[in-house]
C-alpha cells in the first residue's frame, strides 16, 4: 500500500528528468537560434566552399596536419587552383583573426572541444595578454 507513494515519487522524478532540458531552458531564458559568428570582413571566400567548410573543415585541417607533420608538404592547392601555405595560425587565422569570436562560438555552441589548441596558439590572444 505505502509503496504507491514511492512509485509515484519515482514517476515524478522520471518526468522531471525527461523534461529537464525544457525546464532548464525556461530557467536560463534560452532562446532558439544559432551562434553569433563573426565572419571576416576583408575576404569573401574561404579555401573551400562554405558548405564544405561548415561541415567538414576538420577533415581538411587534419589532412593539413598530416601533410605538414608527416610528409613535410607545406603548400596546398585548392580545387580552384589557388596555392595556400598550410598553417593554422598563419593561413586560417590570417582572415579569421579572432578565434574567440569565430572558432569558439560554434564549438562552444555545439559542445565540441577540438584538441587543436592543445599545441597551437592563438597569436592574437598572446598579443593581447602581453603588457
Amino acid at each position, binding site marked *: 500500500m505505502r509503496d*504507491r507513494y514511492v512509485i509515484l515519487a519515482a514517476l515524478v522524478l522520471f518526468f522531471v528528468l525527461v523534461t529537464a532540458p525544457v525546464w532548464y531552458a525556461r530557467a536560463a531564458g534560452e532562446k*532558439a537560434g544559432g551562434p553569433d559568428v563573426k565572419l571576416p570582413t576583408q575576404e569573401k571566400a574561404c579555401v573551400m566552399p562554405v558548405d564544405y567548410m561548415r561541415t567538414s573543415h576538420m577533415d581538411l585541417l587534419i589532412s593539413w596536419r598530416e601533410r605538414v607533420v608527416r610528409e613535410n608538404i607545406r603548400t596546398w592547392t585548392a580545387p580552384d587552383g589557388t596555392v595556400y601555405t598550410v598553417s593554422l595560425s598563419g593561413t586560417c587565422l590570417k582572415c579569421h583573426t579572432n578565434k574567440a569570436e569565430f572558432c569558439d562560438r560554434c564549438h562552444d*555552441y*555545439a559542445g565540441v572541444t577540438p584538441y587543436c589548441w592543445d599545441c597551437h596558439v592563438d597569436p592574437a590572444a598572446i598579443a593581447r595578454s602581453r603588457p
Partner: protein
Amino acid sequence: MNALLSLVAVSILVALAWVGGSVASLRSVFGIVVPAAAVAIFVVGLAARVTRWALTPVPFRIPTTCGQQRTLPWIKASWIESPWTRAGVVVRMALEVLLFRSLFRNTQAAMTAEPIPAAGQDAHGAAPAARGLRRLVYGEEKWLWLAALAFHWSFLVVLLRHLRFVVEPPPAWVDAIAAVDGFFQVGVPVLYMTDVLLLAALGYLLLRRLVDARIRYLSLLQDYFALYLLIGLVGSGVLMRYFVRPDVVAIKELALGLVTFAPVVPATVSPFFFVHLTLVSVLLAYFPFSKLVHMAGVFLSPTRNLANTNRMRRHVNPWNYPVKVHTYEEWEDEFRDKIKAAGLPLEKA
C-alpha cells in the same frame, strides 16, 4: 522470417524518414510533430503502464531467493541474495539495475560432445542406465550479460552526451563525459569508445538470435524489431558523426527550438538527420508498449524488490474478509450430550 519481416519494417521507417526529410512540405512534420508526439507518448504511456503496475495487488511475497534465508542465529544467512532488511533489498535492487545480477547467473544447457563411457562408472558417477548416452550439462553463459552491460551503459553515456544538443551552453560535465569517451583521440572528430561498444554489443545481440537455432526458434518479430531499430538508430548516428557530415549547428538549432517551444527546421539540416530523429521517435513511442518497458519494470519486479520475510513476520492479506468459522469448542458444545452418551472424552467436562 521474423528477422526478415522486422528488417523490412525498419527499412520502411528509414525510407519514410528519408522522404520526410527530403520533401520540403514534410520537413516540419518529421522535424517537429513526430518527435514532439513521440516524447508525449513515451512519457504518458510509461506513466500509465507504471500506474497500472502500482495498482496491481501483490498479496504475498515471491522472494525467489538465491541464498540462505535468515533463520537460526548459527546458520549463516545471505543478506543480499535473500534479504530480510530494507537495506538488503536496496543493495539487491542496485545490483540488479546497475550490474544485471540475475543475468550474470545465466546458464546454457547443452549435450556433452562425447558419450558417457560404456564400461564402468564415468567421472561424474553416471548411473549404469545412462552409459553410452550423451549427457545434458549446464554451463555458465556470460556473453549475454557482458553484451547487455556494454549496450546499456554505452547507451546511457551516448544519451547523456546528446545533452549538448538540447542545453545551451552545454554543461561542463557533458563535455567531461565526451572527453573521457573520446580519450584515445582517434581521428577527427574523435572516435567515441561508446559508439564502438554499442555497435559491437548490438551486433552480438543480433547474431546471438540469428546463429543459434534454439534462440532463433524463441525469437519473436518484436525481438528483432527492437534490435534493428536500435542498430538503425546507432548506425545513423555513427554515420553522421564519422562519415556523412551534417550541419551540427543547424541540428542544434532544431533541437533547441523543440525544447524552447519555438520550433524551427533550418534548411541545411540534411535528410540523413531526419532518419536518426525519426528512428529515435519511433523508439520512444514504441517504448511503453513493448518489452523495452523493462526499463521501468525492473524496479517493480516482485521477485527482486520484496524482502524475504515470509516466515519472520506474519503477513495478513489486507483485504481478507471475516471468515465464519466453527471452532472445536463450539462443536463440542453442540454435540456435548451425544459425545457424553457415547462415552467419548471431552475437552471440557
